[in-house]
């Protein structure tokens, strides 16, 4: 029997369509069918100035917009050869880790909901709300923050922001304990996740899986630690790795990652350096409002950046960051003009999704739901 | 006050219906159901006789028949599933070979 799971199905996390060939409840074959959320962002980017692309990157992965911002911004900064002041870097790391927690909370909630544990979902969204409030405080937006700019940050973080982050960082570990109380030791949760949708390390590498999907299979690789960017080398953190390669292993990886992330947020708050939040590059970075009103030069630069953008030296850059889902990569090609010649987004989910068929074939229908949850896909990122 | 023979007639007709179904039905499951119908007809006559002779043995017999029928249904339906898996049909006319 052919069963069409999706594109509107409660547990396909958006508009994923799976064509399942089933025999009773056993899966014979899985054919993912994607593209229902294709917005052509890569094409749109080619028509925008470099700085206009930042808001577009928010829309790709709506669960971790700041990670995408960061990746794009880093790529362009590399093309330009800009030096970013330490405070901006630390802020970026801190917000990125908050984003990671935010994304993992949504993942944990929906994953648990898929398996039937409803309460975890609402608990997770309770903490997510706190993080979104922090985002709103710092950037004025809850989800589509666009807070990172080429060369630094958009704004100084407001007064009292760090105290609130500090407060959240204090509270959060006990909340993670709460989620774990509901799930980790729960025998039904164990039955549903242990040994389910297993994938070996070799297969994971060959299939291009990354992030917790890769680390859940025992491959100890994390871009933040191994190919550090944006000052991650200044932070101390462990990279959680599980050996089993099943849904439970990926679950444990992510839950541990949340704990590590909040520790990094704490480190960032504790060691936040003082200084400017923007690089010194008047041709690229919009001047402050005050300067614009007082200095002729600043006004001219502002006018030029807004109307004709800034030229980026020709060349190409592939910048990858560790997004909550895995390796998020931006391949930016410049032809020397003010508009990117080509931007390609390497989506972690697209590669992870390729691993789904090999995870689930021969298993039961309910395992597909668990597996989709465990690879944590975001269709916006897959389809772009 | 219903004559006991009415019950017997009813049971007889049910049994006859069962036999007819067994003969004219071509779907294995329907044929199987006809057999159940026959058993039910017989059960009714057992209960009726039990009432007539004021002996509970008749009801006990019905109890046994039911248990056996349940067992039979389990095995029979399992066989039907097995047959369907290999032949992809439920039509009795196409399942008349012992070996494919």
């Amino acid at each position, binding site marked *: 029997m052919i069963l069409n799971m999706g594109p509107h199905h409660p547990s396909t996390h958006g508009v994923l369509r799976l064509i399942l060939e089933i025999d009773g409840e056993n899966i014979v074959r899985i054919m993912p069918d994607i593209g229902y959320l294709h917005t052509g962002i890569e094409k749109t980017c080619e028509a925008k100035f470099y700085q206009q692309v930042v808001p577009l990157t928010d829309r790709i992965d709506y669960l971790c917009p700041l990670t995408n911002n960061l990746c794009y911004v880093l790529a362009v900064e590399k093309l330009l050869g800009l030096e970013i002041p330490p405070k901006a870097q630390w802020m970026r790391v801190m917000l990125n880790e908050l984003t990671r927690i935010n994304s993992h909370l949504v993942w944990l909630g929906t994953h648990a909901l898929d398996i039937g544990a409803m309460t975890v979902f609402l608990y997770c969204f309770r903490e997510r709300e706190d993080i979104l409030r922090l985002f709103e405080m710092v950037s004025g937006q809850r989800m589509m923050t666009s807070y990172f700019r080429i060369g630094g940050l958009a704004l100084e973080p407001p007064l009292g922001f760090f105290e609130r982050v500090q407060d959240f960082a204090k509270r959060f570990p006990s909340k993670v304990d709460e989620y774990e109380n509901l799930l980790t030791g729960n025998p039904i949760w164990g039955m549903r996740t242990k040994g389910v949708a297993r994938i070996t390390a070799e297969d994971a590498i060959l299939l291009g899986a990354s992030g917790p999907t890769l680390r859940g299979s025992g491959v100890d690789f994390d871009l933040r630690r191994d190919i550090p960017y944006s000052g991650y080398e200044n932070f101390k953190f462990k990279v959680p790795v599980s050996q089993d390669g099943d849904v439970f292993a990926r679950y444990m990886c992510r839950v541990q990652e949340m704990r590590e992330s909040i520790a990094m947020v704490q480190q960032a708050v504790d060691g936040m350096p003082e200084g400017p939040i923007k690089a010194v590059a008047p041709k690229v970075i919009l001047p402050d409002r005050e300067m614009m009103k007082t200095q002729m030069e600043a006004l001219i630069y502002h006018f030029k950046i807004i109307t004709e953008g800034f030229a980026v030296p020709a060349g190409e850059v592939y910048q990858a960051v560790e997004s909550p889902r895995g390796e998020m990569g931006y391949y930016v090609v410049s032809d020397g003009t003010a508009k990117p010649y080509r931007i390609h987004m390497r989506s972690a989910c697209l590669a992870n999704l390729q691993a789904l068929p090999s995870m689930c074939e021969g298993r039961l229908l309910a395992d597909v739901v668990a597996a989709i949850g465990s690879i944590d896909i975001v269709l916006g990122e897959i389809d772009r | 006050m219903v004559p006991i023979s009415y019950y017997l007639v009813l049971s007889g007709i049910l049994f006859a219906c069962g036999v007819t179904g067994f003969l*004219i039905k071509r779907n294995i499951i*329907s044929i199987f159901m006809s057999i159940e119908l026959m058993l039910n007809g017989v*059960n009714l006559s057992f209960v009726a006789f039990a009432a*007539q002779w004021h002996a509970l043995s008749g009801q006990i017999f019905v*109890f046994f028949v039911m248990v056996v029928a349940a067992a039979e249904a389990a095995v029979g339906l399992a066989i039907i599933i097995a047959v369907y898996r290999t032949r992809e049909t439920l039509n009795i006319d196409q399942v008349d070979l012992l070996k494919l």
Partner: protein
Amino acid sequence: MTHLIIFLFFGALCLAGAVNLLVQRHPINSALSLVVVMGSLAVEYLLLGAEFVAAVQVIVYAGAVMVLFVFVIMLLNAGEEVRTKGSRVAMLFGIPGMLVGSALVGWVLIERTGSQTVAAGALPGAPRTIGWLLFHNFLLPFEVTSILVLIAIMGAVVLASHPDTDSGKKKS
């Protein structure tokens, strides 16, 4: 009087169900007709005073055996049956057999009507008495039947499980 009316009503329902079973071509309709037959038979049992048998009829027959039938029909997604000519032997012996049977029934009907009657609840088939009988006078048959059921369950599991996959996990 009421007794007779009730008997006739449920008898008619029972017969309608039986005939419908024959007429319907889709197995699921036949199965539901059979459920109706069984339900009305349970009422007839009540009329005969066999409360326990009536309850067991509903639980075992309507509640378990027929659900199993419906389940299998759903599982195999059985469609309408194709009417073909029955076998010659069936026609040769079946039709005369039917006729003889009907004649016999008719004879009983004519000869024996009114010879004996039964009142509602005439013979209370109390569960306690039946249980006592089962475990004393009929102990051996009871045990034999239970072994039979056990074997049947094992047989069903073996038959229904896929030969290649692990399975055997669901009996039904």
